[in-house]
């Protein structure tokens, strides 16, 4: 029998609240299937199953908050004879405050929504994620949207409940305090001329419709991921007094949330992704992070983080490592800067790339070579496509 335990979805998560099961006893599941929706301090996360099997018993009740590592469900492994069906588990003696299956305020309930209904909802200013659906499988239909539009005047998104914001701050506080307490950071930075990258990306985007354009941020992510191939000591985790190199290069992207706080989920195997696909993955990740709809593997898998604060106008970032990772890369503002070449000073578009490194896992010498490799890759943008 396989025990399905609540996974840790980041250093800042001690517990999670089960919002809903996405399976029922008897269901056949495959590795990677969405198994449950769990609310963490930062987001409602689609938790994936990591083994094939048949669902035998769901132990945790929706609405329950449980510590990381708690057995939530049992599955029969492929080929294993299913045990007798367990007796239904009584509801917890102390009922949670909300109705067990109701999602907490602010957390999307995620009914299926037809594209037509979604489009219509957008036009009418209706928040489709909050609507109960009357269609098949609870799908939200065009009629549901119209009813909702009639029933209440379009409402602006309410500010999140303050306990949500507090939980987010607490999670960030825990992770960043641990980082500053445990990780001896070293910081390095390098100004990277970006004229080639700007010219190349301008030409690349020129003939593309707006839906297919690529942002400089995607190019920078690709450069970081490719450079990491030669610097495995910056890509991994510090656990139990030792460095564990990561198997893949899964880049966590720091995404600020409008209601405050931030989240840094991973894009998997960034070095292998063509630039177009990387841009699509980035846009999708940002959209879902802000909608509170991430997958557990995205939360648990980052092997390094990239933070880009250039849009906010800062010249340079002094980034703080997200434990147990051992490095974080920051990018500042892309802007014209004085640059000396061939004895002449001119203005070229440039960006300051910075590295926060864990001195237990690597030294400044390696970090400096890594930043130089990132800078070199950005001089040949065509190779990043």
């Amino acid at each position, binding site marked *: 029998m396989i025990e399905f335990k609540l996974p840790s979805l980041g250093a800042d998560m001690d517990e999670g609240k089960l919002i809903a099961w996405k399976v029922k006893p008897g269901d056949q599941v495959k590795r990677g299937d969405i198994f449950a929706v769990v609310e963490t301090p930062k987001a409602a996360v689609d938790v994936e199953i990591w083994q094939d099997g048949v669902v035998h018993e769901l132990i945790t009740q929706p609405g329950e908050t449980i510590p990381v590592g708690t057995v939530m469900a049992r599955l029969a492994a492929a080929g294993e004879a299913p045990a007798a069906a367990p007796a239904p588990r009584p509801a917890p003696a102390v009922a949670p405050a909300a109705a067990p299956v109701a999602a907490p305020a602010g957390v999307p309930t995620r009914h299926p929504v037809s594209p037509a209904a979604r489009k219509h909802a*957008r036009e009418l*200013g209706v928040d489709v994620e909050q609507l109960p659906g009357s269609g098949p499988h609870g799908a939200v239909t065009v009629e549901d949207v119209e009813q909702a539009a009639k029933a209440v005047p379009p409402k*602006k*998104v309410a500010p999140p409940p303050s306990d949500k914001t507090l939980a987010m701050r607490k999670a960030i506080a825990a992770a960043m305090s641990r980082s500053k307490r445990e990780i001896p950071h070293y910081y390095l930075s390098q100004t990277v001329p970006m004229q080639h990258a700007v010219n190349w990306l*301008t030409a690349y*985007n*020129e003939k593309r*419709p*707006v*839906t297919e*354009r690529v*942002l*400089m*941020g995607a190019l920078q992510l690709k450069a970081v991921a490719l450079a990491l191939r030669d610097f495995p000591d910056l890509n991994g985790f510090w656990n139990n007094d030792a460095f564990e190199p990561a198997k893949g290069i899964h880049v966590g992207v720091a995404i*600020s949330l*409008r209601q405050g706080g931030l989240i840094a989920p991973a894009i998997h195997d960034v070095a292998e992704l063509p630039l177009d696909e990387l841009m699509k993955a*980035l*846009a999708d990740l*940002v*959209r879902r992070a802000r909608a509170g709809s991430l997958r557990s593997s995205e939360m648990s898998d980052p092997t390094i983080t990239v933070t880009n604060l250039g*849009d*906010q106008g800062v010249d340079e970032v002094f980034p703080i490592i997200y434990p147990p990772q051992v490095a974080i890369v920051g990018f500042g503002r892309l802007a014209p800067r004085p640059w000396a070449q061939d004895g002449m000073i001119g203005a070229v578009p440039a960006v300051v790339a910075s590295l926060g490194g864990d001195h237990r896992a690597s030294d400044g010498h390696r970090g400096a070579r890594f930043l130089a490799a990132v800078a070199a890759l950005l001089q040949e943008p065509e190779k990043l496509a």
Partner: protein
Amino acid sequence: MNAEEIRKVVLAELRRIAPEVEDVQPTKPLRDQVDLDSMDWLNFLVALNERLKIEIPEADYRKLGTLEQIVDYLSANAR
């Protein structure tokens, strides 16, 4: 679609991306008033493209500094 209708669409799409936005001064740089990063800006243009069927080349971004300029640009390019 006239300029006033376009303005409504622009503001609606802007508020979908930045729900906290209330008043936008039409002649003040938009990105000084609204917290939009590169991804927000791209999503904003994608949404305008979907709603209004107007393609905005990247080279024209510099013409879209204020709400007024955006409405003027879209009005001039609307079919």
